[in-house]
């Protein structure tokens, strides 16, 4: 029950302020708790938040951000884009070829189920520990969720729209561009979102195992050398990185899929 907006009552909080407060009080309380508790009861593994933040400012703004975070991000984005393009292309093709898709399905399901971590050693042996290994690992890991979601999305294009395309003799190029891909895009974005978390995990894992720089390597080597506050600062960076990437993704998604949101809220409202 939100109070109605009353611009002339200073005692009541305006609706907008109230909305913001509701969303931020918990995070603020949690961080505050962390601060107080870690200062009161410091331990080796849980240093005071104050110190972690001090180190964070020292290290990551902006020196290590450049030397460690940036390479990780570059590899991440490269691998992700590769996997994305390959997944959408192949997924669209398979989605439009039901017989081929059906024949490939068990094999695809099996290969997809190989946990990225398990094939990491293979990649290390084949490609060493440099950027090539990381980019390829991420590309492969990103590829699968997108592939499967693209296949699903393309296959479930509204049959009526397919009839429309056929009856108006719309050529293949236009069909793909204006009908198939837009219709499949909500599903593809869903896969892309999963792929994003996979990519983040893989970049961290590959750097932890591989060495040779990157944010994951930083955290791991800090742990190994018992530089705990540094390690925590790195973990915070990882959390922030994940959050920022996700937020950017969501912004992009809300722009591209604005039509979809509009349509589904309308449907939910009308109960159709």
């Amino acid at each position, binding site marked *: 029950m939100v109070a109605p907006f009353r611009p002339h009552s200073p005692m009541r909080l305006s609706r907008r302020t109230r909305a913001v407060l509701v969303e931020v009080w918990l995070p603020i309380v949690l961080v505050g708790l962390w601060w107080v508790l870690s200062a009161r009861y410091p331990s080796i593994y849980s240093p005071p938040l104050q110190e972690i933040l001090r180190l964070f400012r020292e290290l990551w703004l902006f020196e290590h951000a450049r030397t460690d975070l940036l390479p990780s991000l570059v590899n991440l984005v490269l691998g992700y884009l590769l996997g994305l393009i390959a997944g959408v292309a192949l997924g669209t093709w398979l989605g439009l070829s039901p*017989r081929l898709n059906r024949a490939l399905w068990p094999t695809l399901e099996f*290969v997809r189920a190989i946990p*990225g971590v398990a094939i990491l*050693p293979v990649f290390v042996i084949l490609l060493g520990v440099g950027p090539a290994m990381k980019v390829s690992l991420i590309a492969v890991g990103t590829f699968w969720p997108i592939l499967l979601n693209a296949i699903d999305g393309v*296959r479930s294009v509204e049959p009526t729209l397919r009839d429309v395309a056929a009856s108006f003799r719309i050529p293949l190029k236009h069909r793909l561009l204006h009908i198939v891909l837009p219709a499949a895009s909500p599903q593809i974005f869903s896969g892309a979102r999963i792929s994003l978390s996979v990519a983040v995990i893989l970049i961290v894992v590959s750097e932890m195992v591989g060495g040779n720089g990157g944010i994951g390597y930083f*955290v791991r080597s800090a742990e190994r050398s018992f530089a705990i506050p540094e*390690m925590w600062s790195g973990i915070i960076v990882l*959390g922030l990185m994940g959050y920022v990437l996700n937020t950017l993704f*969501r912004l992009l998604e809300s722009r591209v899929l604005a039509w979809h949101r509009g349509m589904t809220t309308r449907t939910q409202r009308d109960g159709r």
Partner: protein
Amino acid sequence: MTSRVFPFARASVAPPRPSRRATGMLALVGQAGVALACLLLWHLLVAWQWVPSSGVAAPLPALARWGELLLTAAYWQVLGHTLAGWFIGLAISVLIAVPLGVAIGLSRFLSDSARFTIDFLRTVPPVALLPVVLLLLGPTLTMKVTLIVVGTLWPMLIQSIYAASQIDPVLRDVAQSFRLPRGHRIRFLLLPSVAPFVATGLRIAATVSLLLSVAGEYIGGAPGLGAALGSAEQSGNLPEMYAYILTAATLGVAINFGFIVLQRQLLWWHPSVRTAPCG
């Protein structure tokens, strides 16, 4: 009620059937053919040295080694360790996330409060915490379980919150107008409404759980598949390494398949499971 749809929640419930159960022998033959072709390709890639034999084992030795391993007790122990971590972690996650998530989802205030926190924490890659957990708990089952809980809590929580917000308002009115007691409302309205979404979250979480279990074993050294994989890698025993990779894949497929079957069994009434999508 639906305007603040919780981000990242999955709306569709059961995955579509990939194809109607092999319409005829032809489909089966096609699928087997593709699988065999892949194996053949793998074999040729190694035999012709298109991939370095230092990195890739040939399929036959790998499969042979896998066969041998299947007969050893050690293999099954290793498998058991992985599955133990997987199961316990998942169970704890579910037991925490579902009641908590539903409770949060039913209250507008709580969902608004929790949104940012959950949004943020879910993006922290659980492997980032691996070093911390490893320090605190060493290469043990507890370490794996903790890692898994941290990783799987968020998807389950999000799905449960979303589920609670999707309870059909018409059904809620029905329950209210017939003055159903609280226990009955939970049993006959809340739980069945929430079940499909929770089931989807569970399926996702099960896959993530396996991934984290293996990651914890491989990087952290806790006993299990990942560790066995790592030691095979260290000793340069490629066929064994690949045998374990294949094991991990089979496990993943089996778990996913198992959950899909379970979902269809328990949720036979839900429209997404009832109707077969176009195929």
